[in-house]
């Protein structure tokens, strides 16, 4: 493993967390750090100051925690489960109410697959979510998709308990719908 001193690694990780979308490093959605940031995503997104109060129904924290920012998928599948559709219906309602937010839909895969295939699989998952949100009236122009394949797991064990959490899409909000 790395020969870098731990402190250096920590600094590096913090630096990245500060300038990139926290979910890229699996902050668990409503975790600490800034919301969907401009740094790593680029193009049309402005940084937001924070997630806000989860009791404020217009806040990102509310979206992440109460509405639910993520949807899980079965092994090697990109079709939405009934549970997934329910979460996404809530997302669509929230997005239709809070129309100033832009959205990046991330698609992720577990480690049981080759790298490039998993990029494609993550893209299929993100597209499934995007298509569902469009069908619920969310404007296509507010949304972009990105696949991380198996590059950004949030759980690190190599059993189904972790895999099931890593096979996910995450709907990441940021201000600035006029992309």
């Amino acid at each position: 493993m790395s020969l870098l001193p731990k402190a250096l690694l920590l600094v590096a990780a913090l630096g990245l967390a500060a300038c990139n979308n926290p979910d890229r490093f699996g902050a668990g959605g409503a975790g600490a750090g800034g919301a969907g940031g401009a740094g790593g995503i680029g193009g049309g997104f402005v940084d937001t100051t924070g997630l806000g109060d989860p009791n404020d129904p217009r806040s990102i924290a509310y979206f992440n925690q109460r509405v639910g920012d993520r949807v899980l998928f079965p092994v090697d599948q990109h079709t939405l489960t009934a549970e997934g559709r329910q979460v996404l219906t809530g997302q669509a309602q929230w997005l239709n109410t809070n129309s100033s937010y832009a959205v990046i839909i991330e698609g992720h895969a577990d480690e049981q697959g080759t790298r490039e295939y998993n990029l494609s699989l993550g893209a299929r998952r993100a597209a499934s979510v995007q298509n569902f949100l469009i069908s619920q009236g969310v404007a296509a122009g507010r949304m972009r998709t990105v696949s991380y394949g198996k590059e950004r797991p949030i759980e690190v064990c190599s059993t189904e308990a972790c895999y099931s959490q890593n096979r996910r899409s995450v709907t990441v909000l940021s201000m600035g719908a006029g992309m």
Partner: protein
Amino acid sequence: MTVNSLSIRALAPVLAIALMGLFGVQAPAQAQSGPLRIEITEGVIEPLPFAVPDFVDEGGAGEYARNIARVIASDLSGTGLFREIPREAHISRVSSFDSSIAYEDWKAINAQAVITGAVTVSGGRIVVKFRLFDVFSGQQLGEGLQFAGTPQSWRRMAHKVADAAYSRITGEGGYFDTRVVYVSESGPKNQRLKRLAVMDYDGANVQYLTDSSSIVLAPRFSPTGDRILYTSYATGFPRITLMDVGSLRTQTLAEQQGTMTFAPRFSPDGGRIVFSLERGGNSDLYMLTVGSGNLSQLTNAPSIETAPSFSPDGSQITFESDRSGTQQLYIMSATGGEARRISGGQGRYSTPVWSPRGDMIAFTKQHQGRFHIGVMRTDGSEERLLTASFLDEGPTWAPNGRVIMFTRETSGAGGSAALYSVDISGRNLRQIPTEGAASDPAWSPLLP
């Protein structure tokens, strides 16, 4: 892309000069004479015993004289086809490059091949010459050769000597004077940092090409080794990216808003790039012509088409697709059109890579919860699995088509990736020493 304090040492050309006439007294040995021939076959072989005494210092060589001999020995032993007789066992000492070889002394310790050499360093220039002897026939094998370059390139010259010896004894091309581009990894599994790196095939001379600020995946050398294609998240989205190795300048290719591009590979002539483009969740293969920027679509299916690889003549492409319901391997014309499936066994097949010799395709296979690296003929016959582990993936061929390097990742929270090589008979599995975790290796052609 910002790269801090990175530099690439331009590789000085290494000159090979046959020492014609220099050994006029010696009768030229027939290439691959009698006992010194190793036939690389599927059967178990007994490694050929050889000796490499420290090279003779003919002026200013210092440590190079020993170190060059050590790298040659390491190259040959590392193939699994050769076994070094340790220096402590040597009876004869080689004190002069031109003195005659005491065959009886080498025969007595059962060395079948002996490599002798000499090193001169002066004026910022190193000259390495060597001879290869077939002990049992009592003859020099092939001509003496001389390589010259800068002292910093001493390992390359050692590799070139080893390549020549390997080649003369096996009749196959060598693969020691090569580089590998790969992804250097650090950090825990859920905060992994990745950066592009290149190293000698044996893990030496590591140079980092990018910092860790964005994900980089699956690099490939251009046929001449001066450019590298890879997938980068520098824009926030996966994009195929071309880097000039000399200047480290990067260029995003085939950028189209709302799409993801990945899995780029050069054609054998370097003029075209085949890659995957994802739009609306569907990945297909496309071809980019490097000069004109012309883009053409090769596949048009609702399935995943990715991980392409050109045949060595550039006329065909092998790739993976899940059009049948699971990942399988296919071959089609490099201009697109109908594809024929070649994989037929149980399990999922992916990442096909055409052998530089054209006769085989290496692949990743998933079956019953295990990953394997395997090879098959281009018609799908004679499938052989070479490895098995929790996660093996992404084979790349040595330029002689005899050895495969790949990524092996261990499981669990502390899981990390490392580079391994194995020969195509499944023998000689070994880990490549790297400074940290590493993945996605791609072998360069033999350096000029």
